[in-house]
C-alpha cells in the first residue's frame, strides 16, 4: 500500500471501518511511516481527550409520553381513520409506556395487549365524527408542540379570552386536560356568540392603580398556569389565555389601558362600560401603538439609568460617553465593553436601553434583554433580573432561545431560593 493510500485510509482505520485485510495493510504501512504514525497519534490524542462527550445525555421526564401520545394518535388515524380512546396528554396525566396503549378491536391484532387505564385518563371513543377528527387533529398538532411553537402560537388565539373569560380559574388537575381540550374544539369550530354574558370590559384610561392591580393579577395567573400545567404540554386554551394575558399586560404596562382581563376579580371596574366582546374594535390604532412604544422606551431608558452605577465606578472611557439616545448597535458595543470591564450593572442598563431601540428586530431586542438579565445576575441584582426576565417572556414570547439563556442565568438562584 502506498503512502497516499494509507494516509487516505487512516480515519477509516482508526474507527475500525476497514475490512481486516485492508486494515492489516495500513497497519504494515504505519510501522514504516513516521508521518502516518504521527497523524494517527494526533487523531488518537484528540479522540481520547474528547472521550467525555461520548457520555450519554437523557431528555427530561415526560419526553417519551409526549411523543408516544402523538405516535398512538397518528397510528390510530392511519390505521382505521377512527379515534378509539384519545389519550390526553396533560402534564398531570402521564400514561406510561404500554399501559397507555389503547384497547381497540381493530388494533388488537397487531398491538400488544393493553390494560385499561382509569377513566379519568381517557376520553370516550368519539367514533368517526367530524368533531372527533377535529379533536384528534388538535391533539396531534398542539399537544406536542415544541416550546418554540408553543410560544409563537399563543398570540394567534387571543380571541379565546374574549369569548371565554371564565376559563381563567384553574381547574382540578385531573379534569383540566379533558375539559379544556373539549372547549377548545368548540372554539375552533364555532366561536361562541359575542354577546356571551359580557363581563365588563375596561376601556379608555382606567385609574393607574387598577391597571397595576390588573397587571399583577394577570402575571400571577400566567404564573399559576405555567406551574399548574407543569410547563410541558399546554393545551390550546391555556395557550390562548397566555397569549391574551401577555397582550393585556403589554397594553396595561404602556398606559394605553385598552382593557384589563375581564374576568379578573382584582380589577375593580373604575369607569367601566359594558362592551360586547368584539376583538376587532379593541385593536389599538396605530397611534396607540406609537404611544405605547414611546412610553415603554422612556421607561426602559429610565430603568437603564437607574441600574447604572454611579459615574465614579465606571471604567474610564465609558464614563465620558454621553448617554444620549444612540443606535442600539452602538449601545450594544458599549454594553459589551462594560461587561468585559466587569461593570455588569452598567452593562445591564446599556443592554436594556439597546433592547428598547430595536424597532423591527424583536430577536435583537430579546437578546439584549437576555444579556441584561445575565449581567444583572452577574451583578447580584436578582430581583431586577427576574423582572426583566418576566418582561422578556411577555414582550417577546416567540424568542424562546433568548428566554432560555435568561432562564439559565437565573436558574441557580431560583433553584436555591424558596421564594421564586
Amino acid at each position, binding site marked *: 500500500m502506498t503512502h497516499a493510500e494509507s494516509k487516505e485510509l487512516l480515519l477509516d482505520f482508526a*474507527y475500525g471501518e476497514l475490512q481486516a485485510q485492508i486494515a492489516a495493510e495500513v497497519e504494515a504501512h504505519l510501522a514504516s511511516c513516521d*508521518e502516518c504514525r504521527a497523524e494517527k497519534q494526533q487523531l488518537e490524542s484528540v479522540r481520547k*481527550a474528547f472521550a467525555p*462527550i461520548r457520555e*450519554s445525555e437523557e431528555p427530561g421526564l415526560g419526553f417519551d409520553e409526549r411523543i408516544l401520545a402523538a*405516535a*398512538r394518535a*397518528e397510528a390510530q388515524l392511519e390505521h382505521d381513520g377512527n379515534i378509539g380512546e384519545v389519550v390526553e396528554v396533560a402534564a398531570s396525566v402521564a400514561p406510561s409506556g404500554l399501559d397507555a396503549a389503547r384497547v381497540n378491536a381493530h388494533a388488537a391484532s397487531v398491538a400488544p395487549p393493553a390494560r385499561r387505564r382509569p377513566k379519568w385518563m381517557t376520553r370516550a371513543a368519539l367514533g368517526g365524527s367530524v368533531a372527533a377528527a377535529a379533536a384528534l387533529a388538535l391533539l396531534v398538532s398542539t399537544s406536542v408542540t415544541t416550546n418554540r411553537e408553543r410560544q409563537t402560537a399563543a398570540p394567534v388565539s387571543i380571541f379565546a379570552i374574549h369569548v371565554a373569560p371564565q376559563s381563567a380559574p384553574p381547574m382540578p388537575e385531573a379534569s383540566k386536560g379533558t375539559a379544556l381540550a373539549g372547549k377548545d374544539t368548540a372554539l375552533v369550530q364555532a366561536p361562541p356568540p359575542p354577546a356571551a354574558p359580557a363581563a365588563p370590559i375596561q376601556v379608555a384610561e382606567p385609574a393607574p392603580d387598577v391597571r397595576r392591580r390588573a397587571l399583577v393579577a394577570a402575571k400571577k395567573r400566567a404564573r399559576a398556569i405555567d406551574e399548574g400545567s407543569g410547563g410541558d404540554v399546554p393545551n390550546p386554551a391555556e395557550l390562548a389565555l397566555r397569549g391574551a394575558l401577555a397582550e393585556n399586560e403589554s397594553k396595561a404596562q404602556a398606559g394605553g389601558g385598552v382593557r384589563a382581563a375581564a374576568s379578573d376579580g382584582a380589577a375593580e371596574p373604575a369607569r367601566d362600560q359594558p362592551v360586547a366582546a368584539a376583538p376587532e374594535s379593541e385593536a389599538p390604532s396605530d397611534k396607540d401603538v406609537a404611544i405605547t412604544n414611546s412610553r415603554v422606551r422612556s421607561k426602559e431608558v429610565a430603568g437603564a439609568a437607574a441600574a447604572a452605577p454611579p459615574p465614579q465606578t465606571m471604567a474610564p472611557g465609558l464614563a465620558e460617553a454621553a448617554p444620549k439616545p444612540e443606535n442600539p448597535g452602538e449601545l450594544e458595543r458599549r454594553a459589551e465593553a462594560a461587561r468585559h470591564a466587569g461593570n455588569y450593572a452598567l452593562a445591564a442598563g446599556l443592554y436594556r436601553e439597546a433592547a428598547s431601540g430595536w424597532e423591527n428586530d424583536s430577536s435583537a431586542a430579546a437578546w439584549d434583554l437576555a444579556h441584561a438579565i445575565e*449581567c444583572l445576575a452577574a451583578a447580584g441584582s436578582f430581583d431586577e433580573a427576574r423582572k426583566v426576565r418576566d418582561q422578556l417572556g411577555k414582550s417577546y414570547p416567540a424568542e424562546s*432561545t433568548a428566554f432560555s439563556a435568561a432562564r439559565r442565568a437565573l436558574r441557580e438562584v431560583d433553584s436555591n431560593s424558596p421564594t421564586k
Partner: protein
Amino acid sequence: MSLERTDEELIAAYRHGDAGAFELLLRRHRAPLFTFLVRMLGDKERAEDLAQETFLRIVKGAQAWEQRARFQTWLFTIARNLCVDASRRDRFRRTESLDAQGPDDEPAMVDSVPGHEIDPARGAQSARLRPLLQKALLGLPPEQREVFILREQTGVAFKEIAEILVVNENTVKSRMRYAIEGLRKALIAAGIDADIAADEPDPAVRLGRA
C-alpha cells in the same frame, strides 16, 4: 439468534398500527439523538425541543417512509436539518451566551451534570472537562462539528454520515480531518491535554488535505 427486531422492522410494524413498536424505537434512539443535539447546540433545552420535533416528524412521516435507507439515517437527517434551520434563525453572535466568554471558566454553555458513570473519579474528571470540550466543539464550523459528533459520539460510519449530509464520503472525511485539527488546536489553547501539547509534531507533518 437474535430476537431483537431491527429498526426497520419496527417502523414497518408501527406503520401497521403497532404503537408499541414505535415505543421501542423511541427507547432505542432517544438518548443517542438527544446527546447528538446537546453536543451540536450546547444547550439542553433547545436540544430537547429539536429531539421532540425530530420524533414528531418521524411519527408524521412514517406512512410515507420507504425502506431505502436505514431508520437511523432518516432520524439523523431530520435532526441535522433541524439544527441547520435553528442556527440559520439565530444569528451567530446571539447564539453564544455571554457567560461563555466571561472571565471565569464556569461551565455556562451546558450543564455539567454527568451522565452514566462507571468510575466515580473518572466521572468527576469528565464532568469537569465536558464544558470545556463542549466549548471547543461549538468553536468548530457547524459542518465540521456535525461530522465529528456523528462519528465520535454517535458512532455513525463515514459512509452513513455522507448519506445524512448528502455529500460524498471524501468530503465527510476531509471535514473530519479539519475538525480534528481544529479541536487539537483548541485543546492546546485551553491547555487541556499536556500530552497533546507536548507531542506537537514536526511542522512538516500536517493534518488536512490528503
